[in-house]
């Protein structure tokens, strides 16, 4: 079981938090802080597994994380999950984000956390891995986005498109947020 999925940046700012067990908002923030504290002090070339923090589950649980450019992707899982499997899953997740956002960077996650949630929902459901095939995930996400578009009249969609296009990457945001999470693959 996956207990929680957290994405935060190098400064510990949460970009997405998904808890599959209920905690109060305060505890959630504490968990994010604690996890950030644990993860951020680790060097780049150490292993990606951490014995769980105090707050979330204790010794049963493990933190499995990956660090991409400016973001940490942390999965808190129990002993039934394969460690290497989850590492692969994080990779699939980020690659999927990359496909859906085209060269995904932190800015995309900042402004479209709802979309990230929707993508995540196609991969993990209630703490269990639902789908690991990237094409299948993208197909379902696209189909739902298409549905969403079709539900709006042209007037609405125009307006929405306008409003969505505003916070794009052309703004005056700091360049650091635009670092692509995935280094483009060389042929």
């Amino acid at each position, binding site marked *: 079981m996956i207990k929680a999925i957290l994405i935060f940046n190098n400064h510990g700012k949460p970009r997405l938090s*998904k808890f599959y067990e209920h905690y*109060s*908002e305060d505890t959630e923030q504490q968990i994010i802080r604690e996890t950030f504290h644990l993860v951020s002090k680790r060097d780049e070339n150490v292993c990606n597994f951490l014995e769980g923090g105090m707050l979330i589950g204790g010794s049963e649980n493990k933190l499995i994380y990956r660090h991409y450019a400016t973001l940490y992707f942390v999965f808190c899982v129990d002993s039934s999950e394969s460690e*290497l499997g989850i590492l692969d899953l994080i990779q699939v997740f980020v690659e999927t984000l990359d496909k859906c956002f085209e060269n995904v960077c932190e800015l995309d996650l900042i402004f479209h956390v709802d979309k990230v949630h929707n993508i995540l929902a196609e991969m993990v459901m*209630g703490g*269990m891995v639902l789908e690991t095939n990237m094409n299948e995930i993208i197909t379902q996400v696209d189909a*739902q986005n298409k549905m969403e578009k079709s539900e*709006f009249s042209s007037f609405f969609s125009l307006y929405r498109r306008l409003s969505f296009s505003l916070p794009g990457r052309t703004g005056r945001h700091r360049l650091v947020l635009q670092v692509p999470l995935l280094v483009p693959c060389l042929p």
Partner: protein
Amino acid sequence: MALKIVKGSIDRMFDKNLQDLVRGIRNHKEDEAKYISTCIDEIKQELKQDNIAVKANAVCKLTYLQMLGYDVSWAAFNIVEVMSSSKFTYKRIGYLAASQCFHESTDVIMLTTNQIRKDLSSPNQYDTGVALTGLSCFVTPDLARDLANDIMTLMSHTKPYIRKKAVLIMYKVFLKYPESLRPAFPRLKEKLEDPDPGVQSAAVNVICELARRNPKNYLSLAPLFFKLMTSSTNNWVLIKIIKLFGALTPLEPRLGKKLIEPLTNLIHSTSAMSLLYECVNTVIAVLISLSSGMPNHSASIQLCVQKLRILIEDSDQNLKYLGLLAMSKILKTHPKSVQSHKDLILQCLDDKDESIRLRALDLLYGMVSKKNLMEIVKKLMLHVDKAEGTTYRDELLTKIIDICSQSNYQYITNFEWYISILVELTRLEGTRHGHLIASQMLDVAIRVKAIRAFAVAQMATLLDNAHLLTGNTQRNGICEVLYAAAWICGEFSEHLEDPLSTLEAMLRPKVATLPGHIQAVYVQNAAKLFATVLRGQEGAPADRTVAQETSQLLIDRLPLFVQSANLEVQERASCILQLVKYIQKLQQKDVEVAEEVTALFAGELNPVAPKAQKKVPVPEGLDLDAWINEPPSESESEDEGRKPKGKAVFAKEESKHTKPRYTEVDEKELAKRREVRKAEQANNPFYIKASPSSQKVYQDGVGVEHIPVVQIDLSVPLKVPDQYVKLEEERRQKDKADKKKKDKKKRREKGEKGRRRKGDSGPESEEDITPAHMVDITTEEMPENALPSDDDEKDPNDPHKALDIDLDKPLADSEKKLPVRTHRPDEVLRSPVDDGEGVEVVPELKKKSGKEKKDKKKDKDRKKSKEEKKKKKHKHEEGENLMGAGSEVPVQSEDSNEVAAPPPATTTNEEAAKVSEAPSASTPEAVSGMAVVPPDSEPEEAKDTEPEDTKSSKHKKKKQKKEKEEKEKKKKKKHHHHHHHSDGAGDESVQNGNVEEEEPLPPMSNYALLAENSYIKMMCDIQGNLQDGSQVVVSVIFENKCDSFIKAMEFNVLDSLNSKLQRPEGAGPHDGLTVPFQLPPGISNEARFVFSVQSIVMPQKLKGTLTFIVKTDDSSTHEKLDFKLHFTCTSYLITTPCYSDAYAKLLESGDLKGSSLKLEGVSQPFHHLLARICFHHHFSVVERIGSCASMYSRSIQGHHVCLLVKTADQTVSIDAKCDEPGLLGNVLDEIKLTFSQC
């Protein structure tokens, strides 16, 4: 103008969307909190608007704020509103918000039941998907129970996308509603072989998760998984399966043997490291489970160790980590194979990665032997010095203690060395583990008698240097060792060289800054030391002044403690102060007091196992749960209060160690009481009388004998020659770790020469090291007839415990269907043959048994709070009881006129609130289903045309097709779940896999309009109650149609001779029942009422009235609505499946009377016709061939009703048989009516 309004609203609508909010927050870095609070105010305004788009936008923003840590539970109702939007876009926003912030105590969750049900059966697969995803995050026991059937249906949906989600969510449903596991399991099992890999993977996922918690119940699935493992190529699935096997093999070693080969093949062939790793892990699990006498498996062990070594040597830190992790598993059973890689593991201790170092530490634990213990500990001590982070250092500290103390100090050959290690550890700054070190010191000092002199000397030095330990407030954790030091010095003071100076050290003013519990021990042990000093001095009567000076010292210093804020310290100090004052008086009179004072503290202590108290068997005839005195206030507080405290004493320590028995002083009083009790029980054979030497009352509360203990004294007294003590003293002063080792070697050699003991070294005797000291007791002391109980570790609160359900046992008839509390409690399948009593037993008997069941249930309710933690043994029963309000209702005895009705509390429980989702009353079928049948219609006499034997032979012929037919039957069954919401998607799933191309069924509902006025609409459904043959449950949906609040609804029915409304005890026969809810405008809700009926042969009509208060802003008016309840004979029938052979037997029995019916001009397709009969008249299809079908149903009183339905040229002929002709005639009339109306 109109356009302007639209435009305006749209402008407002997108005033600030999520992106704007995010941008705003980013632009207000300095006053973020203030900015967000204005945003929340805006959101509150937006939520007040009627426009759903505005609301959805607001909810979307709230979801973001929730992530930032803002509580948004206040908007829960708005979230529900957005969830119920018909637009997917908004629905998705709503469900996302709900999944982020709803939880079990969110009260609006109960409003969502119907919305979710509707979404689950939506024709749009993404509506369903989004609902499933959301539900998986916030499913509650109520939701799980109410929706289990709907989700089970979705498991057979045509779309794999839905199937996989439905399968996955079942795990959550099982957790919240364990009763659903058995009924749902067969279908879940089917999904293991689903053509879609995603669904298959989901099913494997769920079963693995279930099996991990209760593996033994899933052993029977092993062959299936084995097949999957050898056929599947999906690494995800493989990993899950292989992990599952890892959990199963310990239970079934034969399985393990079979696994070795394919797993070894996979290890050799796979390129995926994740898979390789899991294979190695499972092979290890297999090897652990196999008995050690299997030489041919050493190859597998070698393979594993070799692969792991490759992983550990890999440059990838992840593989290194996992390699070490797996290695530690091998270590437990095959330490030899791992020990050869000691170099590699010690190397990992130097790794820069803390996780890897910790793993390596774990491994070291199992790798120590008598030979290498000192070497390894020395290396660890070096790491302790180097370690920077306190967490890692603490980890090292606990590991050192673990390593040394493991298996009863098995590897320690020299306890002087160990004590000095412990003393050295006290120099660690800021450790949290002072308590652990202290308990080790106590343990060693108590259990290793030979070491006491040495230990006491060390402790005396510690006490002398206490200021070093307590100097810094940050070091507080370590001052716990002073607790041990003081106690050891006091208790074994005879070994002290200079008790007086130690006494002086213990009474320094600085001591008053220590924590209270340590001061208390100081004071108490000062008294012990005082006794020792007196004895020493009085031996030499020449110098009495020393003794008197000592008394004076105590009298001078103790007042400091008498003033202590700590009650414990205060009390002990003042007692002892008075005692010393008295002694001083005697001393001044030259009276010899030493002997009396020493007597206060005489006696030997025994170590007692931590669980000893728990293991004392309960004497026969003693019921610990029974009240001793009726008012339960004081009598229990003793037992209950003591237990956790007793635990707390030990909980802080590692349970692996043997604990010294020291007790906190507030137990003193209890201990005394216990002594009294013990005296009373002296003649009881269950109490072991302690030997006189150990029978000692300790007034000081240290080592109070709570537990009868058998004295086990295995030790041969040892004398450590003085020179070694001195050596040790010198060594300590030099304090060099490397020198220590030499000392030890010397000592060891001498030790070997000097003393030979028969030891407990047992299998280790092959090692040429003789321990210098023997651990006093090899096993912890236990009461003689201790009960072997192993369930100590199990956590009674584990939700998975409830899922420990035997899945191999064939489903009992009553559980084939989910015992869901739906509107249709009739759907529990029951086959007449499986349950023979159904044929013979007369109704009265059945009623009785039902009654008994309920009585049991009532008892259970009473005990519930106690029993909650226990395993649910009567799961089946409880499940049934969940099915309807009826079950909660006290049974009404038919002879008495006393009336019973559901207690209000239960009904409240039953309510399933609905948001604006009124049942589709407009469906004509719904109305016709409940149509009035003339009450006076005479049963038609038998004009059976078809001889029974031909019928039955036909059935036999049909047997081959049985399977196919059963599938269909299931499909029919599914229709029932769809209630009034059955629609496109539902039908799709029903049609799934059907051979024939059949057009979908129109939606059907059994809810018929009961009455309606401008305020309120009542829809009702009448169902027989399965539990009680004389009860009928009427579910009424009340819908508020007006704009005002409706409250104080009272439901009343004029009873007839045959049918009575069940009212609560004490209510008169004409009193109405209060509807346990109020209705806000536009809301509908459902309540159930139970009626008792005597005869079910005839249909009935009951007149009733609903009175209620309509409350508007300024006024409230009383209103009433009259209605007529029609109890058709159909409502006494319960859908019951029947196998064709049982059906044939039933027809052959000849007990049934026949009747028949012909319907002309029925144009609908045959399967619709059957579905209609199934749905409206509660029949199930036994077999169907072409245009001919046999059907079965059973009445609540156990009458069998069999139908043979044939159709040709728009004519439907129904031949029917029943053992109650009256009932049959009425049922046929009702069927006729159903078809005449469509």
